[in-house]
């Protein structure tokens, strides 16, 4: 049944439906509802909830739980995610699966608590030290806050890599109709039995002891490890996801993710009604990025307008994908500003003219 759901609550239900067995978090606006609701839901289901003393501690508690092969998650917002970067780098280095949610707010620094998209680079280009990638999902609706969080755990385990859900304060705070499985509301679902995944630490009963580390000092050892990781990051393309409408016959294609994609869609429908050949493309995964599809469209000389709640970050990936084959334009607002339909329409009219 469709009911009004708040994005942050839908995210929690998604995590629970995805089998999240442990949650560690620290309060920060605009994602406090996640930590609060988790404290209720995880405890009533007999799963693990702990409010950490800092984001540093939270991500390292995630690291600890992930070592054992459990499904574990943390959530935060931009400044807190910055604090977690060290831990995320270690998680990737040690090939540990987990889910990290960034309900983005305005930056840099303490910034503000409005929704923003200033952490795109941090999310898709690594973020911490070393050569690495996260699998990055970008929900656009409250329904997707649920669906993508649910799905994120399987992806994390498939690749033994952290998955980041990159969303923002608007999607976290807003409510809209969503269909959330009622079955997960029943009590008494507890943590699954511990299983041997071939790599997890559970105590060495009946097998030789294992160790998990990211320090590789032997000659060439770290280089080899990096090649192995890179192969994995490439393989993630198997789970690439995007949606598009009207791109085939479009002159100008709007590209945006998360909240901006919703605004783009409104622009797209408005202008199509006026007979303008506008297309709409939304990456649902930010890494891997739909670069092949964008290049294909660029070769057919379609122009692109990238819309972001930042001064322009994803636009760089669009430009890399287009690779000079066509023109790429940008419209964005940083620091919590939300792009308006009218401004995007003006920009398109400029491009067409």
């Amino acid at each position, binding site marked *: 049944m469709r009911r009004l759901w708040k994005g942050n609550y839908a995210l929690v239900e998604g995590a629970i439906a995805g089998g999240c067995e442990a949650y560690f978090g620290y309060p920060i*606006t*605009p994602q406090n509802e996640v930590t609060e609701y988790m404290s209720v839901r995880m405890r009533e289901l007999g799963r693990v909830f702990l409010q950490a003393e800092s984001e540093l501690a939270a991500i390292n508690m995630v690291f600890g739980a992930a070592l054992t092969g459990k499904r574990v998650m943390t959530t935060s917002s931009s400044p807190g995610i910055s604090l977690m970067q060290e831990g995320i780098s270690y998680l990737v280095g040690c090939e540990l699966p987990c889910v990290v949610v960034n309900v983005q707010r305005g930056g840099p620094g303490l910034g503000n*608590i409005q929704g923003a998209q200033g952490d795109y680079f941090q999310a898709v280009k690594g973020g911490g030290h070393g050569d690495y990638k996260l699998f990055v999902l970008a929900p656009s609706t409250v329904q997707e806050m649920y669906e993508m969080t649910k799905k994120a755990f399987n992806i994390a385990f498939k690749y033994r890599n952290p998955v980041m859900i990159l969303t923002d304060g608007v999607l976290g*705070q*807003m*409510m809209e109709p969503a269909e959330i499985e009622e079955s997960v509301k029943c009590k008494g679902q507890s943590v699954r039995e511990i299983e041997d995944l071939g790599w997890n630490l559970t105590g060495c009963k009946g097998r030789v002891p294992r160790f998990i580390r990211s320090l590789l000092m032997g000659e060439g050892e770290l280089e080899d490890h990096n090649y192995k990781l890179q192969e994995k990051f490439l393989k993630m393309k198997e789970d690439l996801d995007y949606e598009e409408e009207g791109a085939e016959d479009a002159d100008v294609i709007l590209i945006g993710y998360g909240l901006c994609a*919703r*605004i783009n869609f*409104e622009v797209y429908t408005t202008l199509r009604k006026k007979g303008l050949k506008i297309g709409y493309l939304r990456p649902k995964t930010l890494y891997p990025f739909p670069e092949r599809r964008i290049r294909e469209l660029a070769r057919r000389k379609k122009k692109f307008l990238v819309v972001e709640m930042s001064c322009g970050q994803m636009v760089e990936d669009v430009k890399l994908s287009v690779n000079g084959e066509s023109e790429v334009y940008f419209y964005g607002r940083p620091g919590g500003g939300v792009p308006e*339909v009218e401004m995007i329409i003006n920009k398109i009219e400029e491009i067409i003219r």
Partner: protein
Amino acid sequence: MKRKILISGFGGQGIMVAGIVLGEAAIKENLEVTFFPSYGAEMRGGTANCKVIISNEKIGSPNFKNPDVLISMNQQSFDRFSKDVKKGGIVVFNSSICKAGNVSGVNVYGIPANEIAEKVGSLKSANMVIIGYLLKIDGFLDIEKVYDVIGIVFSKKKEFIDINKNALKEGYNYGKESSFK
């Protein structure tokens, strides 16, 4: 059909609940809806507001600057937001504790929501009084659907269901009886 509604007032006046009632009723009519609350530091100091968009098409951003409809539950809200209302838009205000200031190009309606609410049994239902009144002025939602969702929204506070339904009805009837400007 598209309405951007800003509901604003003191914390405790049921601002958020009013938005949720409109939202759930919109779902009953198979309309698209978004609800966006003020949050964090914005909520400190006792004011609250929420933004509701109801439309028959997919909704982009749930946030907006210029509402079609302002529901102003106190004076501060009227003073702060009435100038943002779109030309030809509607301002409904709680005349029990709020006076209409000077605004041009919009339609302004007052209702003594507190008195009516107290009469039906609880001052807390002033939010429903004003929702009822709004829907008489601008029938973008079927009032019957709103009655239906009150039972759902207040399912954990059963004693308030009837009071809120009555408050809604009184507000709606107040609209029937008074002649609009």
